[in-house]
């Protein structure tokens, strides 16, 4: 399908352009923040002579444009640079384990939320206004209304500190071992993230299902005498799922940013916490790397959703030829 390839290439090109614009914006925004890396490192001990010395050591006395291009040039050579602060670790080595941790958290949360919310959403759309639908609606609206950290705190109280003592309240991930060998630390943060994101999928699929079930072609299928199971599986669900794909993609992309709150709450060492730390230290190479990653996740998920939508919907699929 050359048309599809062309579409993908175009979207990837646009995505790349977005990333470049973002990198300039992030750089400018970090510069606009009050204080710089040197004053942040020194805090109250920032005497003028010490600030001067540290700026020189960090290369912050160079013109801004030089600083930006020295960073961008490094990136083109595949070198994301070094953290400006502390032991000046290479960004890749510093963020590597944290990216894995955050990705693991998102993956587990997605695996928890997506299948369950698809099931709940389609069933409550099918049995609209029944007791089941009412309770699912109540539940999903409640979770949608609660801020993420409240969900997290309630889960901690229930499973870790007050009622039951079955799961750890904070995720003390051992940096020397893989996150997959420490799964018990993942359940609570992942469940929090899942509960915060699932309601949107449930609501969307329910609405979409109701709309589809009232559509002419479903009426037609029913009038034709097709069994209800076939009507649902072959006619209703594939059509109802199309808008939901977009919602899922947005949800996953939201998680990439939404992990910040969850990571903070559970002291989970992922990119969210690293970003907060980097911003407060004005550690530009680290901020750039994380924002770049999150933006790339957005671009990729949206693109994937668009491609899936095209492939699934017959009208768009045939339009490609």
């Amino acid at each position, binding site marked *: 399908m050359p048309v599809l390839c062309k579409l993908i290439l175009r979207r990837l090109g646009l995505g790349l352009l977005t990333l470049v614009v973002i990198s300039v914006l992030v750089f400018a925004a970090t510069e606009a923040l009050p204080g710089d890396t040197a004053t942040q490192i020194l805090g109250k001990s920032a*005497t003028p002579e010490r600030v001067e*010395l540290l700026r020189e050591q960090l290369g912050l006395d160079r013109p801004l444009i030089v600083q930006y291009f020295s960073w961008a040039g490094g990136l083109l050579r595949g070198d994301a640079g070094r953290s400006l*602060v*502390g032991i000046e670790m290479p960004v890749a080595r510093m963020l590597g384990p944290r990216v894995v941790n955050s990705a693991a958290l998102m993956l587990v949360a997605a695996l928890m939320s997506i299948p369950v919310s698809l099931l709940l959403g389609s069933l409550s759309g099918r049995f609209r206004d029944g007791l089941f639908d009412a309770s699912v609606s109540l539940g999903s609206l409640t979770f949608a209304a609660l801020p993420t950290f409240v969900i997290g705190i309630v889960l901690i109280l229930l499973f870790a500190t007050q009622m039951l003592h079955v799961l750890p309240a904070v995720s003390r991930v051992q940096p020397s071992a893989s996150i997959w060998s420490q799964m018990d630390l993942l359940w609570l943060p992942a469940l929090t993230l899942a509960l915060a994101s699932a309601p949107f999928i449930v609501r969307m699929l329910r609405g979409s299902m109701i709309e589809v079930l009232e559509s002419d072609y479903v009426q037609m299928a029913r009038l034709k005498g097709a069994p209800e199971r076939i009507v649902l599986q072959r006619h209703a669900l594939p059509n109802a799922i199309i808008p939901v794909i977009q919602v899922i993609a947005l949800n996953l992309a939201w998680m990439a940013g939404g992990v910040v709150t969850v990571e*903070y*709450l559970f*002291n989970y060492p992922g990119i969210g916490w690293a970003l907060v*730390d980097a911003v407060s230290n004005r550690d530009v190479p680290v901020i750039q790397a994380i924002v770049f990653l999150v933006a790339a996740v957005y671009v990729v998920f949206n693109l994937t959703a668009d491609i899936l939508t095209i492939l699934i919907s017959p009208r768009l699929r045939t339009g490609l030829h």
Partner: protein
Amino acid sequence: MSDQEGKPSPDLGKLGEIVNSKRMTRRRMLQGTAAAAALAALGPFASACGGSESGTAASPSAAARKKGGHIRSAVTGGTTKDVLDGQVSYIDAGRKCEQIYEQLLGWDSNSKLVLMLAESYDVGADGLKYTVKLKPGLTFHNGKSVTADDVVYSFRRILDPKTLALAREHLTMLEPSGIKKVDDLTVTFTLTQANATFREALAYYGCCIVPVGFDTPKGAKGAIGTGPWKVTSYYPGEQTEYVANRDYWGEGPYADKLTIIEFADPTAKLNALLSGSVDHLAVLDTSQVPTIENTPGYQLLEAKTGGFDPYTMAIDLKPFDDVRVRQAFRLIVDRQAMIDQALAGYGWVGNDMFSPFDPAYPKDLPQREQDLEQARSLLKQAGYDNDLNIVLNCSTSTGAADPGAAQVFAQQAKGAGVNVKVNKVDPNVYWNKGNYGSYPFAMTMWGTNSYLWLCAACMFPNSPYYETHWKDEEWEKVVLEAYKTADDDARNELVRQAFTIDYERGAYIIYEFNTMLDAHSDKLQGLVANNFGEGGATKQRFNLMYFV
């Protein structure tokens, strides 16, 4: 940004009630502890008190303490910017360095100067020459012995303007050429001018002894000192792991391993303690005290410190160029009420003079109380009649209670007809040049220090933290004389005079000294309240802690 204009906050009354109920439980608890202590004192056989500073009536002697175990301590404030270099790190990063590095002298838990790596020190009659003898047989973590060469290297490194060493500003009386090795264990320091604070400089955390050739470590490797714990791994902003230094010259460590874990959020830190992920928590929020009190298996440790979060009045700027305004402002403060409202009761009343543990601190001067009548009349004499408007600068980085304490001050000042506008400055720029140091009226923060040490830091025009622009001829005369006086009694008498001047016409409003709180599992014992007050209530003396 000045969204809060000193309007009376409707919540304050309610806050007071909550605070009072909290204090009730706390008082009960303190009575309980006092009763337990009294019982222990009654039974002579119950006391197995060791000679160590950690020995209390109820704790076993050093020899009887259980060895082994892994202490896990939760802290906040550490970030990726921390390095394990004891000469450049302080508070949050310093907490991790204190386990590794040590100084020639040190402070005990009651702010008394004690010997650490030094076996003895001698001050010449002119107050210029200090001879320091090292304890024999000391070794670094890599097995190398500690010699005079290491001491010379350590102090020259601090004085090198190319390093970020913190202690340089406290060693203005020392030139690199004044540091001399006499023999393997003896070093002499010849000062350019007599200065009694040099002894304290030798005990300052930034003056730690590192081996010859030491440079800022890029991780755990190379972080070599003489301390009770050897660092084994360092993950910036996440955790630092140590093993016990079994060749340690001092007491302990009793446990085998220590891990200091960084938390971004105080709630997560508390949850970690309550769910058993850590054994010790450094710096508990006062709002979390009831949770610890109501959960069996956990204990509070409360340390009275000499740290304080005062108000600064710049004496060369209006309206504080008039001493009567400064005196009036000091009379505005209802100290206990401010401690109750802004610090939930966790603080102890100050009397407008700092360094409460200084041997010369005048405890006999009457406690200053709120006197709005008198404040009004002083302001009137200074030409302000219910029409003084002033901006109070503060930020979330100026102290545990801020900006809450600033709001309370604004409310109390109304009583004297002063309209205070609270200006919350972004914590990231509060200390920047151009802001800090030029505020007429502001809040600041200090740790536990002796009087002369603190004066050097903030009371002279060339001080690095010259926040009050203090200048007073009579004061300067006695203080400069005190720095030069080697005799303890004569010096303390001079310092006492300086204290009195501060009390009468100084530029700080010191309404409180901080109380610092740690929490720990009751399985971990041997915690000693330390009035140093930076980084935690125990000065992070994990070497004294043991499991029961």
